[in-house]
């Protein structure tokens, strides 16, 4: 048990700031909503004189309400920029368990969370390389010949770099994926025209795979499973729209090709 006790209203505020910060870090890095809810509730109800802890988490923000000596505190936090960093989810999850089971003061907890939030992920170019490797190996997995590895690697590498440059304009996930699929399939066609690749279909399939909304799919299923059908539905729709965006991007390029314009 955590032996630091809540003494006054200021401590309640500190505790809820801590819980909110933990929840925000998890949510904005792509955690499932039920996990965020668990974490917030766990942090708040670890103190003995805090009662009636309730949180309501959706994909784009959350409410937290708790009772201290008959007084009810309610907070609302809006979370907007959702990126993906599985490591931060894991670290905050670990932290919340440590916070409950060990003697960590509120100030020290806040400092640890701050450190977790500022941990740099993998360097940008390693991530881009990872995404491009995905594409290369996928074209092999779907039955492409070894010569197809390089063109699909290059196609997704270039489009990932362009997407990274575009990311500062804060386009929505739909436009992002559309542009990604469009560029990848365009580059794949050029690669085949230049004679680097053999099977156009395998190259395109491989080079769009890095756009697949893996996190939305997993989270929507797991959220629905744990009874959180609201977030489950919204993430499911995000996954479907992403798939549609990819299909549109590829479809336009294929259409142009069938008309002989490329």
């Amino acid at each position, binding site marked *: 048990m955590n032996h630091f006790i809540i003494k006054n209203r200021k401590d309640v505020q500190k505790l809820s700031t801590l819980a909110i910060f933990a929840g925000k870090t998890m949510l904005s890095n792509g955690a499932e909503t039920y996990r965020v809810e668990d974490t917030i509730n766990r942090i708040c109800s670890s103190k003995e004189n805090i009662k009636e802890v309730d949180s309501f988490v959706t994909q784009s923000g959350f409410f937290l309400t708790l009772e201290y000596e008959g007084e009810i505190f309610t907070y609302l936090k809006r979370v907007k920029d959702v990126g993906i960093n599985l*490591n931060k989810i894991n670290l905050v999850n670990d932290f919340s368990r440590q916070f409950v089971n060990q003697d960590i003061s509120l100030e020290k907890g806040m400092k640890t969370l701050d450190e977790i939030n500022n941990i740099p992920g*993998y360097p940008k170019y390693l991530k881009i390389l990872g*995404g491009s490797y*995905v594409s290369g190996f996928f074209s092999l*997995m*779907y039955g492409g010949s070894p010569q197809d590895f390089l063109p699909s690697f290059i196609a997704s590498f270039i489009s990932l770099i362009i997407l990274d440059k575009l990311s500062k304009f804060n386009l929505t996930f739909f436009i992002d994926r559309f542009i990604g699929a469009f560029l990848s399939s365009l580059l794949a066609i050029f690669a085949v025209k230049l004679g680097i690749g053999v099977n156009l*279909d395998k190259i395109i399939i491989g080079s769009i795979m890095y756009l697949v909304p893996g996190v939305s799919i997993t989270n929507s299923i797991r959220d629905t499973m744990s009874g959180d059908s609201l977030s489950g539905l919204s993430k499911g729709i995000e996954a479907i729209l992403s798939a549609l965006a990819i299909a549109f991007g590829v479809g336009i390029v*294929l259409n142009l090709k*069938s008309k002989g314009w490329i």
Partner: protein
Amino acid sequence: MSVLLQFMYSFFATIGFAIYFGAPVNSIIPSGISGGASWSLYYIMFSILNDKILATFMGAFLVGTLGEALAIKYKKPATVFITPGIVPLVPGAGMYYTMSYLVGRNFNKAINAGTEVFFMAAAIAMGIIVSTIFTRTIRRFKRQN
């Protein structure tokens, strides 16, 4: 031999995805193994049964179960392992062929491919759901004993 090659390809693809999603360093290799194993199961089952939907279900079930097991072993959230591992099963190829048939005005084939994509996506969801229920039941059973 071809299964071994497929395992290798999907192993590296899953590792690439784990890096792309910023997974913790010591979880990258295990999630690669789980992704590779599930794709290999899909590949074997597809060559035996000739049914993409059932094969996808089995693959997704394996990812889910391995994800929960690895989550206990490495003390990390299960999503860290499931998210990269599920990606090889996502019907990207079906999506592409649906679109290419639509563009070629080959609507009958497009409907065939599109339906298959839809049911493969449903099979992924079912696979994860069943594996979650499966592991939860085992855990409850163990706690009772």
